């Protein structure tokens, strides 16, 4: 079953075409990677999928609904969550609160019930905290739940961002360079976590990543962007042997 179907996406900024006629189809339960040199338009593509940018052309269908042009919060509420390349946590809130914010779309206490502190609100809040701690335990951060997010070590911040995305009980999670800046040890842990998201939680994962070993190891399908255009698509073996991909990464003549 197709979970995400982005067709012929084009987006220009002034004279620069950041994303040019890119199509990406993601089947439910897959791990799909988008790779490409710096400036290839990968993050712009993510921003279009999550509603931060409106595409100039093209359609996005998520879980059977057209979402191109919807607001980011509406798309998030439909079950698409993301992490950011340059970690964007709520630094001055605690680790637990960050996860609770991620649950926003699943908390429905109305204004008046909050003000009168109705029993239903207390119940919902208690359950949310319980669930948030489960999420934190899942990524291995439960013992740090009362720390300020910005005081966490770098690797933990990445994991907290994933926990926050998980808190929204998404169907699809977009990870923008989840291992950037990590040492090999942390990268191995992150790889394991991404795999568990799919295997244990049944999530569909789309990944932007520069670490080729990680990409080749866990993705079932890889799309390669270069100068905003998709130049190749396929499984790890196909991509590795594709001359255009090698050229994009290493320059012309490298294949000879």
């Amino acid at each position, binding site marked *: 079953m197709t979970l995400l179907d982005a067709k012929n996406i084009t987006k220009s900024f002034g004279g620069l075409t950041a994303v040019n006629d890119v199509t990406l189809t993601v089947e439910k339960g897959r791990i799909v990677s988008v790779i490409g040199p710096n400036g290839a338009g990968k993050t712009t593509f993510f921003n279009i999928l999550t509603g931060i940018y409106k595409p100039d052309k093209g359609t996005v269908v998520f879980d059977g609904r057209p979402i191109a042009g919807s607001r980011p919060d509406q798309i*998030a509420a439909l079950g698409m969550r993301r992490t950011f390349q340059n970690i*964007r*946590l709520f630094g001055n*809130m605690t680790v637990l609160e960050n996860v609770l914010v991620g649950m*926003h779309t699943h*908390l429905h206490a109305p204004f008046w019930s909050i003000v009168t502190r109705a029993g239903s609100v207390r119940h919902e*809040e208690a359950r949310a905290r319980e669930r948030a701690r489960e999420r934190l335990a899942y990524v291995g951060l439960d013992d740090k739940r009362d720390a*300020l997010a910005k005081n966490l070590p770098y690797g933990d911040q990445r994991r907290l961002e994933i926990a926050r995305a998980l808190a929204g009980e998404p169907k699809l999670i977009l990870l923008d360079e989840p291992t950037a800046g990590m040492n090999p040890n942390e990268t191995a842990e992150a790889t394991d976590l991404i795999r568990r998201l799919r295997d244990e939680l049944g999530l569909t994962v789309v990944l932007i990543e520069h670490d080729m070993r990680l990409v080749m190891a866990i993705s079932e399908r890889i799309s390669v962007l270069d100068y905003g255009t998709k130049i190749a698509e396929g499984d790890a073996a196909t991509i590795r042997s594709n001359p255009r991909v090698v050229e994009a990464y290493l320059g012309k003549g490298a294949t000879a």
Partner: protein
Amino acid sequence: MATTTPPSSAWERLTEPLRSGPTAYGFLGLYAAVCTWLLLTNPRTSLGTDIVFVLFLLLVLFTFRSRVARPFKIGLAAALLGIVLPIFGTLNPFYIDVATQAGIFVTLALGLNVVVGFAGLLDLGYVAFFAVGAYLWGILSTPQLTEINPAWSPVPPIMFYPFVLLGLVAGGVFGVLLGLPVLRLRGDYLAIVTLGFGEVIRVLANNLDKPVNITNGSQGIREIARPPLIFAEPLRGLGLRFDDQQLYQQFFYFAVLLVVLLTMIVVSRLKSSRIGRAWEAIREDETAAIAQGIPLVRMKLLAFAVGASFAGAMGVIFASKQLFINPPTFDLLRSINILAMVILGGMGSIPGVVLGAVFVTLLNLQILPRTATVLREAQDAGFPIPETFDPTQYQRLLFGLLLILMMIFRPEGILPDERRSEELHEAQQAQQEEPPPEEAAATPAG
């Protein structure tokens, strides 16, 4: 740096027995008894009474900061604010008026704190919502209404009570009206637009006396209605003989106290709810907040509406208490003053903002004028203070100096939100500690 005392300073260790355990009960009880005795036996307005009055209000704060049983806390605070202070007020009306003013500003500061402290939206025109509430009751309860249309007659004074709620709604509506055009703005730009909005409301109040006389212009509105004293007869039945003046002082004191309590409850409940967290998330990072499914527009408008509604309701009470309002009552300085209360007390922190509001009000109404009087008396008594030096002229200077010193030595406010205090002192710690080398290296831009 010498300015930052760690939480477990020698002072804190010395005073620890006063804040917890059986000694705390004894200390608070004795403190309360002494203050009460001093206030009730010597209620004359003087420097001594001023000091005792400030100590009395500090006691209420200590009561809440001590680790004593909750019923004791609430019981003692209720006795102090609900019994001792009103009785003292019947002996000396000046101090109960100061307390009422302080309460009015506590509500305003708490409302502004929702917008500035929680949601991080800098609002420099907050007093406009206070004006909306005040003019609402001012116009509709006085013959001013017949100026607009001779066929209309003022609403009866008993309508004061529903009008407090109406002021709440009107404040909220104006909050949304201000919010709508400024949704896309942040920081400095937002501050300028809100400043403009505040001025627009004030200038409207000043100039809407022609072609149709709505606000009576710079003359202001006089003889604003007060609600009938429905409880006067039962009180007289009890043998208590107060004149109307005293009764109104008591009435407004309790009305303001009630609104303050309600505001504190509402604000603290919102803070710890999904709505409060959404506001904080918006303050921290809008893009990340919206990616969590938080509807930015709705949440920002809600912050503006909630913050403004408290000011609207308080405006109605204020107009009725003052009997007279005019445009300068709602000038920019008033907005800045309320913002100073929020920042001085501790942005985002509810106890901090309450303390900040009480402190600034006392400073303006009591401490600074008293300092001036004391200096003047010293001058008259022959102390070597130059003849040309007029202490009363230097009140605002002292206030400004105090603000500057506070921001240098305690930028997070008197009683900061616990999480925020960490944030501001971190920078100083970072200067002292060596930078962690491997972490800095492991954090590339992207």
